[in-house]
């Protein structure tokens, strides 16, 4: 049995001596192979007595499994080293930039459209639409602006000749406001009405605050009980939600629009400094929208009995809202398609607006 101990020492030393996979395999063959040392000893067992055979066989089996274990351990060691070497050779420079990806933008006007829709949607409004080219009935007359009304001249109207008539009063106009959608809605929509109508509008004017095309959103509520108090409440709720402020100073000034009476303009409190405009604080006022109770003549033009129904209307500039909320300085730049501007002032494709998820800045950072 002493032999067995020596043998074990010897064999394990050989395993330990192996320097790589190949020499380890040679050791395995030399010990466990067909003509290996342990194999040979096993073969010799047949010449022994039953007792000795049993004794010896047991010892040999233990030896064999110990050597196998040592061989496996050594093998794992070499495999790990090999893998380590392979991975070391595979190193790449992960500080290199990623492949270029294209990330688009949503135009501020579309963004504001979605914000405004989200807010008024919450108040039960639907979105209505109308054509860009209008007849004068819908753009003017039905809105209580007959042919010689001075307010018509205040809106520098673009005209499109009518192929069927030479009379200028029959020519078409490119709508000067979204208000004709009020009339179209009254003509087609069952009562009560609660709509907003965002869209393109056109006036012949061009400077830092006027462009020949701009965007308005019209609002119209008609039922039997809506009052000017509701008008104030609705718009107050809107500006707070839109500017994402808990409180915001507002004031209403009496004004004049042919299609509403009483009419008012709404100002919001702000702080104007040389380089900054801060909404919701300070002592200055900023005009933000026009509104009023729908004029009885307008209801009549829309086929609604003003003795039974009443309501309010309002209109504001979408581009202007975008400028105020997102600090965009010049209206003209909205329509110049400068990719630098679009990238800077535009919004991420997944930056969607909702009252549940928030109106702005919930879509991650721009790349």
């Amino acid at each position, binding site marked *: 049995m002493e032999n067995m101990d020596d043998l074990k020492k010897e064999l394990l030393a050989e395993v330990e001596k192996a320097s790589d996979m190949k020499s380890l395999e040679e050791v395995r063959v030399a010990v466990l192979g067909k003509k290996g040392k342990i194999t040979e000893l096993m073969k010799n067992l047949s010449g022994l007595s039953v007792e000795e055979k049993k004794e010896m066989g047991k010892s040999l089996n233990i030896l064999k499994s110990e050597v196998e274990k040592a061989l496996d351990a050594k093998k794992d060691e070499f495999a790990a080293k090999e893998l380590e070497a392979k991975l070391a050779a595979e190193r790449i420079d992960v500080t290199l*930039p990623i*492949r*270029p*990806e*294209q*990330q*688009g933008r*949503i*135009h501020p006007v*579309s963004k504001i459209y979605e914000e405004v*829709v989200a807010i008024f*949607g919450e*108040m*039960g409004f*639907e*979105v209505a639409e109308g*054509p*860009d*080219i209008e007849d004068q009935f*819908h753009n003017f007359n039905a809105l209580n602006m007959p042919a*010689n*009304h*001075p307010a018509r*001249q205040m809106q520098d109207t*673009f*005209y*499109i*000749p*009518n192929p069927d008539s030479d009379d200028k009063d029959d020519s*078409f106009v*490119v709508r000067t406001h979204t208000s004709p959608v009020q009339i179209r809605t009254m003509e087609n929509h069952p009562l009560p009405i609660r709509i907003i109508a965002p869209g393109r509008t*056109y006036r*012949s*004017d061009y400077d830092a605050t006027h462009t*020949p*095309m701009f965007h308005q959103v019209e609002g119209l509520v008609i039922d039997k009980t*809506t*009052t*000017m*108090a*509701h008008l*104030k*409440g609705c718009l107050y709720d809107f500006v707070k939600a839109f500017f994402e402020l808990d409180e915001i100073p507002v004031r209403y*000034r*009496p*004004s*004049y629009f042919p299609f509403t*009476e*009483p009419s008012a303009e709404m100002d919001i409190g702000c702080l104007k400094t040389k380089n900054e405009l801060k909404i919701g604080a300070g002592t200055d006022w900023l005009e933000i929208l026009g509104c009023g*109770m729908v004029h009885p003549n307008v209801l009549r033009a829309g086929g609604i009995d003003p003795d039974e129904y*009443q309501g309010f209307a309002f209109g504001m500039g979408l581009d202007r809202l975008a400028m105020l909320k997102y600090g965009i300085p010049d209206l003209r730049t909205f*329509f*110049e*398609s*400068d*990719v630098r501007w*679009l*990238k800077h002032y535009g919004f991420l*494709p997944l930056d*969607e607006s909702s009252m549940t998820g928030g109106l702005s800045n919930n879509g991650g950072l721009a790349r």
Partner: protein
Amino acid sequence: MKFSISWLKEHLDTTASVDEIAETLTKIGLEVEEIFNPASKLDGFVTAEVETYERHPDSDHLGLLTVNTGKEKLQVVCGAPNCKQGLKGIFAPVGVVIPCYGEELKVGKIRGVESFGMMCSEKELGVGEDHSGIIELPADTKIGLPAAEVLNIDPVIEINITPNRAECLGVRGVARDLAAAGLGTLKPLKISKTDGKFKSPVNVKIKDFDACPVYVGRYIKNVNNKAETPKWMKDRLTAIGLRSISPLVDITNYINYDMARPLHVFDADKLKGDIVVRMAKEGEKFVSLEEKEYALDNKSLGICDDEGVQCLGGIMGGAEKGCSDDTTNVFLECALFTPECIARTGRKFAIDSDSRYRYERWVDPKSNILGSDYATQMILEICGGEASEVVVAGSEPDEQRVAYIRPSRIKDLIGMEVSKEKIVEILNHLGFVTSEENGKIKAISPTWRGDIEGEHDLVEEVVRMIGLDAIEPESLPHGKFPKQVLSPAQRRAVTLKHELASRGMYETVTWSFTDSNLAKDFRKGKEPVLLFNPIAADLDEMRPSVLPNLLLAVKNNVARGYGNVALFEVGPEFFGRKPGEQNQVAAGVRCGMTSKKDWNGSARAYDVFDVKADALAAIAAANGPFENAQITLDAPAYYHPGRSGALRLGKNVLAYFGELHPAVLKKFGIKQRVMAFEVVLSNIPLPRISNDKAKKKLELSLFQPVDKDLAFVVDKSVPAINLMTAAKTADREFIADVRVFDVYEGENLPEGKKSIALALTFQPKEKTFTDQDIENLMNKVIQEMKKKCNAELRQ
């Protein structure tokens, strides 16, 4: 509308400050646009005395002064010719900002002598026009007083007058509104009647009473138009930006702004015969006082003498018979012209004037005699002379404008309780005559108000005077649970924008107009929709396609050094002039490379398949049938004939896509290749709205699909889509997918042939395919390809 505080106080007895006045104006609907108050810039300026005056040692025209400011005595250099010892004036100490120059005053050194401040002129202080010398105050003026206290400062307020408030185009109207709002009392008018000394040699005849119901004339002889306009009048006119011209002109201007009462004065010696108020003859000549010649039409009202139209009634006087410095006999006109006639003629000939502005809105129909008396009084006072008896043609209309208001209406419409007594009080202050009739308040409009038609107008008057701030805001009551806010068509436009943006494109918004020269190629056979009055020659057509504007954007960005551009816009294109003759389109362009070059070499030039993908993605985002759309090769001629296509559903074009025609691009000055697509949203059918929102049940096969590749040789002219369709339809049950994975033309192929390699996926349904099953499917494909496309299997 501008007026000065002193002018306002001519009509309003008030102690209110400028700020209080301004605040009230805005509150009652006369929005203040600007306050010009020179006093606000005079902090630190004080009265001071020139104690000693001697010549500057180094100058003939400069003086060296000792100025006593009440606090200290300072050395000052002054060049004013009227500067002398003992003069009391306004002193600007070092550190103040001189209003006229807008700069802070510093210690100066003038020809070697230091100056510690400045004696000021009216102009330098912004309180007058005089700059001939420094201000000289009365000798008894105390020194050291704030300048604003001793100077005769008259702040000016500019307000915005809405078209319904014509009476406020006169200072008296503004004063009346302020008085009604509780800011003082309206003073009575001081207009006296002047008895006529003789019968007017000029008579008046009205031919068209619809356009001119009444004309009051008066002959005044021996006037002196070289007299000096009084300083108070000149100052007030100057303050509101009107130049003093001659007393006669100044008087008419003054009354126009004082009472919103236009007038006209003829040089009576130039008139031939009587005045006739009549419609002009078609083509009749009129030369305005601005020396412009007009050929009138028969709807233009002329004030005529025997020699023709001398004045375009209520709009503008003529050049020939107006007043000059030498005028000695005048004929004064104070007449009423109806708004319709004025507005039409003014618009037709594009003549703007203060007079037109007022007549077009409303001129008090009962102010003709009054206005004539007012002007006569002023002319006699300032220019002397003798007035004739008044000549009146026609008569002032007597029509009463009556409206009723139910006291409960304010609560019902405005949501604010106002008592009957309060309503009556407000209306009375505004000049309405009220009485009660069947529980309603009857209100007869004052003649200066032309805008009161019904109850809603009276409601507005009451609310305006109480102030809108008094209305307690109330949130809109929630209706039923909200339904969908956006219609399906609106919603898909939003989704589509986000889809295109997530494909790396920038959304832009361009004009609905475009340049007709550039739009020509994009009209697709339709008539152009041209504007009658474009704002610019290159914005004269309602765009027949979004592409011209996007191409201009490409050109501008390329010119700025940004050559890789991917832009899209969702908006209208127009195919007719009538309302509704427009389509909603999503159009996009891609130009340049997918990115700048990078180490991976992944940058590549945009090609047709980028925009084809955009178009398909846009259709898909719009819930359109992108998988069933047919591709045809007939895109409009502004596309490259060999690199473009149309996606159709039956006859309907869902989209065009392709490279744009280089000849078209050349007109835009674009040398690069540009890829474009146009998805016509209006042509994409809306999905059927079904109440069943459940998706079709997912059937998962238990058996693995098998992928096989086959390559075919076919005529070059055969489109790939034909091969794909043939392969796909070879067996409708088991062929799940067909993809093109290689296209080859060139060596080793017969002339005129190309090779297309297809990757096929076979999907077993009930059991795994045997080799024979797969063999059979492949044979089916090969046969179908031969039959439909004359394609041979490539060996």
